[in-house]
Structures are given as structure tokens and as C-alpha cells.
């Protein structure tokens, strides 16, 4: 802090050092959704649900895990996306028909800021792992009840089903001039066929590319500029290699929007929402 005389620039200023320490956002409540339940008929294809935890006052991202309430792992036809609130199911095995209770646990990324555990609770440290009340604002769980029923009489179970992503691809955005990468993850296929992923970028082809090794959309730094700020339609096509003996290849199409944002506007909007700060750990500013 510098303090001088407004009318007399020649006066000798006082300079006082001080530190501003900014801790990450402290979550006060982290509330799971109410328990979900739905019925799935075997053979009806890929179905999914999503949910939302409520956290106040922050907006950390989270990692999701799931298991059956008896502690055993999920059957292979059920999947939970690790970084998105997304549960999917896809089976055509009649033997799968049953009632499943799935416990989904979300763990917030604020665990990244936990202090070293020393067995002594420091009430001034909001990230002291020795705080007995801390766990509830870092992690929480809810239950999904899934009832799998056999297909109705006469229902012909398809010999081949469409491949899919978990989670379902959603709209993407990045700032002009910046590098960007987003992976859709592994493509699943119930029949374990090989799956080919093709992406039609449309007008975005001039700056975007697709890596089939990682199923990722890639944009190199400076591949875009302010003139590219626009919303682009992108079509993602998954095709398995099923032969004619099983009614031919299964094909799934996802249509998403890829937005190239004005970095100034995007930055302001992001900061106005105070989201960016939560991506940083403890900072100390010497002023």
C-alpha cells in the first residue's frame, strides 16, 4: 500500500507491505438430489439419467462413483461417468431383470485444497481435514433405484444395438485463440463390436480436428481468432462393425454445438460468476 499526498507528488510516500491470502471457496452445504427411481425394460437400448447436487456458495466440479448398496460393483451394463452426473444403462439380457439399488457418491474437487492432516483441528483453517464437520461439505451420496423388467411378450430383442458414449456428448465451448481439447471417452457397444467414430465439423473444420485414439476434439492454440467467434454445428457418428448377419451396423448420431467465444466477454462472464477462482488453490499476494 502506497500512501502519498494527492496535491504534492514530490512528497515522500509511505509504503506499507501487507499480504492478502485468498483461500478457495468454502462449501457450506452440499446437498444431494432426492433419490431417483426408474424402470428399464430389457432390450430397450441405451438409457440414461442425470442429476444435480446443490452446493452453496461454490460451484466446484466433482468426481462421481457408484456401487450397489450392498457394496458390490455395478453390473457391466450400468455405467456412471466419472466427471459428470450421468448414469447409463443398456442391456438386452433377460437374465438381468432385477431390482437394483445404486449408491452414487459425489466428491467435490475442493478436496484438492485439504491441508496436511496432523490430528489437531484448526478452526481457522476451512480446509483442515481434522475438522469433524468437514466431510459433509466435500462428499455426499444418494440412491438410484432401477427396476429391470423383462421385455414385453412378443418383443424382439434386437440382434445388434447402437454404440454410445457415456456420458452423452453435450455442447462445448472455448475462447478464441485458446487451445481446446475434449474427450468423449470410450465408445461402448453392447455387442462389443469395434466402433468407428467420425466427426463432421462443418464450418469448424478449419480449426478443429478429431483424434480417434482418444476420441477427442482438438483445437490448437491460435488456430482461431476473434473472426471465428460463432456457434458451429458438429455431428458425431458412432458406427459399429456388425455384419449383415445381425442386421447390419448399429449407428448413433450425436449433434452438438461447438461455440467459439469472444475471450473478453467470456472471461468477464466467467469471473462475474466467480467460477474461475475456485480453480485455484491458496494464493498469497504481497502488496
Amino acid at each position, binding site marked *: 500500500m502506497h500512501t502519498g499526498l494527492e496535491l504534492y507528488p514530490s512528497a515522500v510516500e509511505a509504503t506499507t*507491505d501487507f499480504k492478502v491470502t485468498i483461500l478457495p471457496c468454502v462449501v457450506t452445504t452440499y446437498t444431494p438430489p432426492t433419490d431417483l427411481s426408474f424402470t428399464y425394460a430389457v432390450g430397450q437400448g441405451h438409457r440414461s439419467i442425470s442429476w444435480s447436487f446443490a452446493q452453496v456458495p461454490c460451484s466446484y466440479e466433482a468426481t462421481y462413483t457408484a456401487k450397489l448398496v450392498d457394496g458390490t460393483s455395478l453390473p457391466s451394463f450400468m455405467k456412471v461417468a466419472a466427471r459428470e452426473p450421468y448414469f447409463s444403462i443398456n442391456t438386452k439380457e433377460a437374465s438381468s431383470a432385477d431390482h437394483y439399488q445404486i449408491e452414487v457418491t459425489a466428491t467435490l474437487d475442493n478436496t484438492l485444497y485439504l491441508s496436511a492432516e496432523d490430528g489437531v483441528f484448526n478452526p481457522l483453517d476451512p480446509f483442515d481435514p481434522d475438522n469433524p464437520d468437514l466431510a459433509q461439505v466435500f462428499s455426499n451420496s444418494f440412491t438410484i433405484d432401477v427396476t429391470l423388467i423383462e421385455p414385453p411378450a412378443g418383443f424382439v430383442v434386437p440382434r445388434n444395438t447402437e454404440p454410445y458414449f457415456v456420458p452423452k456428448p453435450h455442447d462445448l465451448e472455448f475462447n478464441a485463440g485458446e487451445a481446446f481439447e475434449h474427450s468423449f471417452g470410450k465408445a461402448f457397444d453392447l455387442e462389443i463390436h469395434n466402433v468407428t467414430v467420425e466427426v463432421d465439423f462443418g464450418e469448424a473444420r478449419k480449426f478443429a480436428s478429431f483424434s480417434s485414439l482418444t476420441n477427442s476434439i482438438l483445437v490448437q492454440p491460435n488456430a482461431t481468432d476473434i473472426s471465428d467467434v460463432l456457434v458451429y454445428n458438429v455431428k458425431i457418428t458412432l458406427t459399429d462393425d456388425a455384419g449383415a448377419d445381425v442386421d447390419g451396423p448399429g449407428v448413433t448420431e450425436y449433434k452438438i454445438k461447438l461455440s467459439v467465444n469472444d475471450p473478453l466477454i467470456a472471461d468477464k462472464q466467467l469471473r462475474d460468476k466467480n467460477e474461475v477462482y475456485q480453480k485455484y488453490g491458496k494464493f498469497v*499476494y*504481497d502488496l
Partner: protein
Amino acid sequence: MESTYSTHANREASDDFTLTLRDICWDLTLTAPQAAAATQTFDLWQTEAVNFNAMNTNLGDYCFGFTYELIYVDGPFAADPHPSGDASLVGPDLTLTYTQTGLQYTGTPVTFNWLGTHKYLIRGTNGNTATAGNRRLYNSIDSNEFEIVIINPCLTSTVSAQPVSDYLTTVLAGVPTTWLYDEATDSASTTYGDGYDRCGARKHYLTDSNNSQTQYPDVSTHRRWLGLNYLADGDPADPVQPSTPPVVFFSL
């Protein structure tokens, strides 16, 4: 003149002469008073002490003492007519600012229009008007001219700020957080006032310390959360200004 013994026609003769009667106090040979220093420099608001050597006559204090008067000669007030209406004088009525005690004038200019170089002289009069009675034919003599330079101490004042506490805050902690910061004195105001009241408003600004272990991934934009809301006058006791307290604010 006539001889009392002679009977000659030339026994008497005459020779004319002129007898002039004069006031001794008017015609004594005067020695002028003398300023002790040709130039003296003072701060505005500082009490000035201007010493001078006494005037004298060839008969010393024959006329019951001496009277002195401080005369404005040149400077920032040179164009101002003298309040007395005496066309031979310029400048302000110096008796309102300076007081003579013995062989010393003291005064304390307090307004900024006194800043600058002023030329004065001291007019010494042979006689003491307080005891003069009917004796009024006193002569005067002027001292050499001397300079009084009045400077603004705020120009070289040194600001002293109170220690600032380190600050711990949290993103989205229910901000903005404000912190009162209005304790900065300056040396000129401390010497001539209450520590705050001489040199006007304070200015505050923030910089990064160069020797820090600071992480600055995005300093320029992070700074939107930290700032100063206005220029404070630095006087916590000032009831008029500022109308709102000066603060450093955190907005996270």
C-alpha cells in the same frame, strides 16, 4: 559694536550674521538599523523570527529611544495598495502578521498566498513616540533590504502510514469486505498541525512487492477484486471530508 572710549566717527561698526535654531533630535546623525540576515527561509505555518541590529545616533539615545517599523518592499504582495492609503507603501498591513519585541520581529504566515520571496526593510526613527510628548521632529533611516523566503513544507513532507494487517479471506466469503484505511499522517502536518490537516488529500494505490513469494498466474485480472474506492483526506477526525470512509475493498 561701539567703543565707549573713542569719540571718532568710526567709533562703532556692525557685522551681520545668521543664527539658525534647530531640533537636535531631527538633525542627529543616524546609523541605520541592520537586518541580522540578508535572506531567511521559513516554512509556511512556521513562526518566523527576524532579528535586527538597533539604529543609533551620534548622541546615542539622546532622544529617548528609537522606533522601528517593518516595511514591505517587493514580493507577491507588491501590487497590493497599502491598507493605510499611504501611496508610498505597498503590501499588507504587516502589523497584523508580525509583532516586534525588542530587536526582533516574529510572525506566522498561514495562507498559501504568502508562498514566495518577500523583500522588506526596517525603518528606524530617532525617538520614542510613546514618550515623545511634544517632540515630533524625529528623523528616520531605513535599513538595508532583506529577503524572507516562505516555502511550502508539503512539497517535501514525508507520509507515515499505519501498519496494515495481513488479510485472510475466502472466495465467495460474503464480500465485499472493507477495511478502514485513514491513518496516514505527514510530517508537515505533524509539525504545523494535527498530523493530517495541512497538505490535503491523500492518495493510495497498490503495487505488488517485488521480493514476494507470490504466485501471479493472472495478476491483472485478479486485481478486479482488490481496489481502493477513493482518495482519502487521511484525517479520521475530519467531520467534513471524506463523506465516506476510505477503504481497501475485497470483492471476491
